């Protein structure tokens, strides 16, 4: 059986700066992968290449056995690849519930499910409830705190009903209890069959969540494996602590 996501030899340059080089990564269906690395190591660039926000010049990305390269981002979302943005990008003129309506209308319904009228609203509110934003469903994003914005990002990605969810630093700034909540939520999603890639700086969360851990440093993957072993890897330790 082939992996759900296959990243093979992906490279990306910005001018003369090499952001990613020869990245290979496989994620099995139903897996929980943690992706870590220092700031500027290329984590978000990799997410952008996988999701189609950026175009990778080299290598290829396959999802559920099909090549994604050249497909626009919206087509990838429709095929079941959803992501949250590291810096929240809410739809500012739409209420929270309406923010979630967009992926339901354009990603879920495009798969031929055609959820109708009132059912959409109910579903938006249910998902908002799962991230603890039910009370603010009719408010505008500008009324939210930064932390709530991150939860909204996650909720909007969930609303697309993805097969693979990429959570890009959704926990930054959250309290201890809130981190636990989000971990529980992601594990629950995973239990329902959603494959999850978690990009995170909070090591406690990564270690608790991940079944496997990959490490990016300066645009290259330097480790990939059992979390407990990876964090003991001398190369990883050196990258994090400096030489």
């Amino acid at each position, binding site marked *: 059986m082939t992996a759900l996501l296959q990243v093979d030899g992906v490279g990306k340059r910005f001018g003369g700066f090499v952001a990613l080089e020869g990245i290979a990564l496989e994620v099995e269906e139903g897996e929980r992968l943690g992706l870590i690395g220092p700031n500027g190591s290329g984590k978000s660039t990799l997410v952008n290449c996988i999701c189609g926000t950026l175009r990778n010049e080299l290598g290829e990305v396959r999802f559920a056995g099909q090549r994604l390269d050249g497909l626009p981002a*919206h087509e990838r979302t429709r095929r079941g690849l959803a*992501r949250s*943005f590291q810096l929240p990008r809410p739809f500012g003129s739409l209420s929270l519930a309406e923010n979630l309506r*967009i992926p339901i209308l*354009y*990603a879920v319904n495009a798969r031929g499910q*055609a959820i109708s009228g009132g059912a*959409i609203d109910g579903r938006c509110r249910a998902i908002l409830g799962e991230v603890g934003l039910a009370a603010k469903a009719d408010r505008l994003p500008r009324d939210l705190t930064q932390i709530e914005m991150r939860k909204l990002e996650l909720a909007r990605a969930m609303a697309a009903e993805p097969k693979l969810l990429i959570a890009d630093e959704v926990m930054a700034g959250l309290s201890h209890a809130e981190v636990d909540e989000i971990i529980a939520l992601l594990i629950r999603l995973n239990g329902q069959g959603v494959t999850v890639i978690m990009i995170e700086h909070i090591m406690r969360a990564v270690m608790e969540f991940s079944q496997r851990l990959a490490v990016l440093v300066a645009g290259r993957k330097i480790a990939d494996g059992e979390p407990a072993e990876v964090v003991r890897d001398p190369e990883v330790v050196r990258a994090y602590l400096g030489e």
Partner: protein
Amino acid sequence: MASLADRQAQPGWGALPFTLGLVLVAALIFSIGRWIDNSYVFFAGYVVAQYIVLGTAWNILGGYTGYVNFGITAFFAIGAYSTVVLYKLVPAVPLPVMIAVGGVLAGLVGFGTGYLTLRLRGVFFSIATLAMAVVVQTLITNWDFVGGARGAYVLRPRTAPLIGGEYVQYLFLVMLGLCVLALVTARSIERSALGYGFAAIRDDEAAAEASGVPTLRLKLIATALSGGFMGMAGAPLPYYVTYLDPSSGFSLNYAVNAIAMPLIGGTSSWLGPVIGAVVVGGLQEYIRVTISSAVNVLVAGVLLVVFVIAAPQGIVGLFQRKR
């Protein structure tokens, strides 16, 4: 798209009652005009109705998706000059057919311009439309068949078909019909998946893509629709003015009014351009009659600047409680 459209249960009237209501209002306005029985009423009414169509057309792209089209005169003139061409080739063609032809042509041009420039940042699209107005004007100025720089004369029939009376009454009625069509379209968009997609594009295009919105396709739909309605608004113009030359057909007044009216009325709903057209159009007509026609063209420009600075949500926004 069709499978997605119109699935929302929104509060308020459905599309059919709304359409019937608008038709009723239009019929009422027209009957009042007939009752007053003064051709000035029809000439002035035509102008306001034309601006409702133009403003609504601009708003479908500008207000809903956030892409600013400055090339209004290009689309408007394409509609007007397609009528001139049809008039010269087959004068028997009824006006509504000419309007349809003008609308389709302008819509295609909108689609083409959008296809070339909508992948880039929004400002490039705006600049391209500005330049396009100059180019379409150059083309028309050099096209002898439609009169070139000298302009073209169009004979306005003496009486109106179907309804009798002066022909301008028919022109007004047709333009009222276009208003109904434009407003029903705009309102249906607002309440459909398309409208949500447009709003997502306006707010954050990358996030819209990531949520599954095919942004390029939606922007092209908006540009084509917007351009098409502008062309339709321009198609009856030759019969209204009876003499059309490039400098009047491409007058910057049309562009400024079409942009100013939605921004003054409010860009977030179909009602904004209507309010803007009635308020600004009415004010302009009043100033033209009482002060001078030179000052009246300043009004839209000054109001536009004042409103975008001081009341970004427009008149509609002033009466709406903030959420």
